[in-house]
């Protein structure tokens, strides 16, 4: 490992890491601050929600009463906000890992140094992982502390499970961005494809309970295997999460292979 390359990549990604981190932490704090008011007006909320179509509720992960701590976190934090930010960090930074340097025309000089292409890619991938871990840990700490203050009544271990599952689901998407960037040298494409797939597979998992036709296909969705809702109730899908880590590793190996054998763009 080249610590210099990794620290430089971390520094280059600093803006993205801090920016996304602030968005997530601030939003979580805001949601938690509002929780007592939501609980107080639970009856009215239930009535309002009942009038919404099922598809809408499924889309925003409204599984149970918003008045319960678990239901509130599912709908307001883990349903949309957390995947958006964590996928944002992973995809955004991984897409720029090698493709960003190629697009900026700095790759020729970087590769003129005595490091192999595989090591360069792995060092940069590791930097993305560290950024993702930093955002995840800040998210977890704020969530655990905030939940206890706001009185959500969700065991802290379940919160940790759910945070972990939310971060793991971002891994294969980040690895895919790395692979596409390594294959094409185009950061735009390396963002667009994983974002598109993220959206599609998110919808597939969210809407599959409503449609018999969709249900068999939900195995294709990483969100299905991450099972954040189950994690939040104390039943993380360890096998599913392990599967996502394996897929990530395969994609990273593929990215290294692709990068090792490609012509660097002028």
């Amino acid at each position, binding site marked *: 490992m080249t610590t210099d390359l990794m620290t430089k990549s971390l520094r280059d990604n600093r803006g993205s890491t801090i920016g996304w981190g602030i968005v997530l932490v601030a939003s979580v704090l805001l949601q938690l601050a509002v929780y007592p008011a939501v609980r107080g007006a639970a009856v009215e909320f239930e009535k309002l929600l009942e009038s919404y179509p099922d598809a809408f509720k499924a889309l925003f992960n409204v599984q149970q009463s918003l008045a319960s701590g678990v239901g509130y976190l599912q709908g307001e934090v883990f349903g949309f906000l957390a995947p958006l930010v964590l996928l944002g960090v992973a995809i955004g930074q991984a897409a720029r890992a090698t493709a960003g340097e190629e697009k900026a025309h*700095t790759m020729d*000089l970087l*590769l*003129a*140094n005595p490091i192999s292409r595989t090591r360069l890619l792995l060092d940069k991938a590791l930097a993305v992982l560290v950024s993702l871990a930093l955002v995840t840990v800040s998210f977890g700490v704020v969530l655990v502390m905030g939940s206890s203050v706001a009185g959500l009544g969700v065991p802290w271990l379940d919160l940790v499970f759910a945070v972990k599952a939310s971060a793991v689901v971002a891994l294969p998407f980040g690895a895919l961005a790395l692979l596409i960037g390594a294959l094409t040298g185009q950061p735009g494409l390396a963002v667009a494809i994983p974002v598109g797939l993220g959206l599609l597979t998110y919808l597939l998992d969210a809407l599959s309970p409503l449609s018999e036709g969709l249900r068999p296909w939900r195995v294709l969705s990483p969100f299905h295997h991450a099972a954040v809702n189950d994690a939040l109730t104390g039943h993380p899908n360890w096998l599913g999460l392990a599967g996502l880590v394996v897929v990530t590793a395969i994609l990273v190996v593929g990215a290294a292979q692709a990068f090792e054998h490609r*012509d660097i763009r002028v």
Partner: protein
Amino acid sequence: MNVISTRQLSKSYGKTVALRALNLEVLPGEVYGLLGPNGAGKTTTLRLLIDVIRPTRGSIRLFGSPMSPRLRGRIGYLPGDLVLYDRLTGADYLRFCGALREHPDPSEAVRLAKRLDLDLDRRTAELSKGNRQKLGIVQAFGHRPELVILDEPASGLDPLAQREFHTYLREYVDGGGTVLFSSHVLSEVEQVADRVGILLAGGLVVEDTVTSLKANAMRELTFTFGEEVAAASFSGIPGVQAAVQVSGTEVRCRVSGSVGELVRTAARFPLLNVTSHEPDLEDIFVHYTEEHSDDD
């Protein structure tokens, strides 16, 4: 053992041939200038050597071995399209390169930067094109490599910096280093290269020392006589390619190799004056370019 040795090195992009069957040998301790117009394959050759692009056919050996990451530590490189990290200062940049090359000693880089009058404390984003080029040169030599590969090194340098750079290049080679550089500026190649290869449309059309290229090149002799002399009197003399009647008393001959026989013939007439136009690399370059386009 040659420092650089390529066999039948070829690179194609789809149907476009960028480089065809290049056999290039660069000897230890020499400055080799790769000369050619834009699009001739110079940058392709250098990028193949540094291993950022891979050959379609053929092979490359550097210091007798195929390219490896470890080998790159013995090489300095300046890309033609030089882009540096905007946020770093020159010193930061050199520190970063030094760490990757496991050569943390910045003394050589600092010395060269001083000679080129480059301020290492400024961020690269604030540097002029010329100063960025200087930093590019400094990083290429900073880790005391055994071989430097430079793509259009003088581009953007002011004449003063250019001269200092050329002096440094000589010192570097005298100290045992080897240089391969590309240029489309003929005067630069003529000034610093020991040997020159002319690359046209992806192929090496000629390769020789600058001295011998010039010696074998066509030169022009113009004779002025005291009476009318026919140009035809000079045709058929060994070495004379063409004799042209400029005016009644003036004849211009193009000659390659020795001019002895021609001058002896001219001396039989009442010769008033001879002017000779020495060939420079430009004439040679233009000659080969024309010859090459005739072939097409």
